């Protein structure tokens, strides 16, 4: 399998807190990689270093290299804005723009630069909403506020907003943790589909979910990468004791 994103000796510090310790890892292209581990082990921190979200946190310091294809996204010459265009992100809590309609939320990425023809916008909105299986539920009220949707619908809208700008990699930080089982199932089906076109990296606390949706799994503990491999292998015959304890729920 081709590698899409590579972490090389990634370290993240928040002030004196060494949150991610010397992590090296290859994320394969067109597949789903799950990041699992106990709370506070640095999963979100790893994920957020992939789209340079830590740039916004003054106390955060990121060292090491992150290669997207063949460019180091932390290179001085690289514009973080350009990185975020190629690496999209879906957050734990749905965060549509409340002042925008459903329609405008989907094309929000284009609204940034303000260059989108009306007819193009309609096409994009329809195809993206169809991909996230939201079209039938909202096609008659595209002009209403995104806040009128349920939590699960809002999250699917946020995914639509992310894929609308056609990134290459999609990061998801516990995208289902605020959702009920049915909404969760829909998102999982969606992730399954997304990997045909995108490289998906998902943080999850739900072992079954990791086992269901991912092809590879990375297990983190206290800021370190303990084990990384095919999901099938990690969940059946893990090499490390800590991994086994965690996935069988015998942890701590």
């Amino acid at each position, binding site marked *: 399998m081709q590698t899409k994103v590579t972490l090389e000796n990634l370290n993240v510090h928040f002030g004196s807190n060494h949150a991610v310790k010397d992590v090296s890892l290859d994320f394969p292209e067109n597949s789903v990689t799950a990041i699992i581990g106990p709370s506070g082990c640095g999963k979100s921190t790893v994920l957020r270093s992939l*789209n340079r*979200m830590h740039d*916004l946190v*003054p106390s955060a310091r990121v060292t090491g290299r992150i290669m997207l294809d063949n460019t180091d996204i932390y290179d001085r010459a690289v514009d973080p*804005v*350009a990185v*975020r*265009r190629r690496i*999209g*992100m879906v*957050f734990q*809590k749905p*965060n*549509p*723009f*409340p*002042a*925008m*309609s459903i329609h405008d939320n989907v094309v*929000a*990425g284009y*609204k*940034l*630069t303000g260059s989108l023809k009306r007819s193009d916008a309609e096409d994009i909105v329809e195809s993206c909403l169809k991909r996230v299986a939201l079209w039938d539920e909202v096609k008659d009220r595209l002009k209403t*506020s995104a*806040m*009128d949707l349920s939590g699960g619908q809002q999250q699917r809208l*946020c995914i639509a*907003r*992310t894929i609308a*700008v056609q990134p290459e990699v999609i990061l998801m930080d516990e995208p289902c943790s605020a959702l009920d089982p049915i909404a969760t199932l829909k998102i999982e089906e969606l992730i399954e589909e997304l990997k045909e076109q995108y490289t998906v990296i998902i943080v999850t606390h739900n072992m079954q979910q990791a086992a269901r949706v991912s092809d590879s799994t990375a297990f983190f503990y206290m800021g370190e990468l303990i084990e990384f491999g095919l999901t099938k292998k990690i969940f059946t015959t893990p090499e490390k004791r800590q991994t086994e304890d965690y996935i069988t729920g015998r942890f701590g």
Partner: protein
Amino acid sequence: MEITKTMTSAMDRETAAAKTAFISGNKAWGDRLFRWLTLGFSASILLILLIMAFEMIKESLPAIRKFGWGFTIGKDWDPVQEQFGALPFLYGSVVSSILAILMATPLSVGTALFITDIAPKKLGGAVSSLVELLAAIPSVIYGLWGVLVMAPWLQKTVQPFLIDHFGFIPLFQGAPYGVSMLAAIFILMIMIVPIITSITKEVLTAVPTAQKEAAYALGATRWEMLRVALLPYARSGILGAVILGLGRAIGETMAVTMVIGNTPQIALSLLAPGYTMPSVIANEFAETTSKLHASVLMEIGLILLVVTLIINIMARLLIWSVTRGNSGRSA
């Protein structure tokens, strides 16, 4: 705002008293007493307002009887001849406040954005406390500065410049007086910028990080983030801040009286002196020439009250129409 603050703290004390008094007795009884007390307090506010309005109407009745509706569009003002018209004051108040708010709003929103999202933390904090300090300066000090420093500067520098370069626009025609509508607009702007800025700052700080991150994650630059996520989310709050500023501007008396020139005329040029409703009341109330004169001033006060009410109602409608699109979150 001050009044409501004192009211609530008084109410807090009452609650505490009520609690200790009835802690061992009948709880329902204490609850009922508390409910009546609070009801009494809020009713008394309404009552004070009603009494005030009633008194003002009563006092202005002679003027209302004599001049009728014509008073509001009358242009002449001569207490000795008992000729009274409110239009110059109405015009002065509305024009100075609205132009002041138009200038103050972008300045304030810009300053607030600088403090919350652009400046480094320390610098932002410094600017922020400076702004708070400005808000605390008594208006008579602004007036003094306005009349001693700003007006001469306007007369010697700004107004001649405007006349030379923009004299073809009626707004900037005539002689440079210094004390003028323009001076009032400037002083009002300087006085309301701190209020609008500090409220806008609070509103902007309250915007969830998730909203900003949503924009950044889509590949927004900082400017695009402000435009797409921050400002739309905060707009109803900012609108509220602007309206508060407008209310302050229209009621501001002291500083405006000192710099506007106090001439009851309607001049299209901003360089000419003008007059406002609060200013004429403050200037002439102590030395009214007749009962009718006093009554007329009362009526101007009444008009001021009505104008303020209308602005508030329009403001509410505006906020309501803006927020209607985003139910699901409070303004």
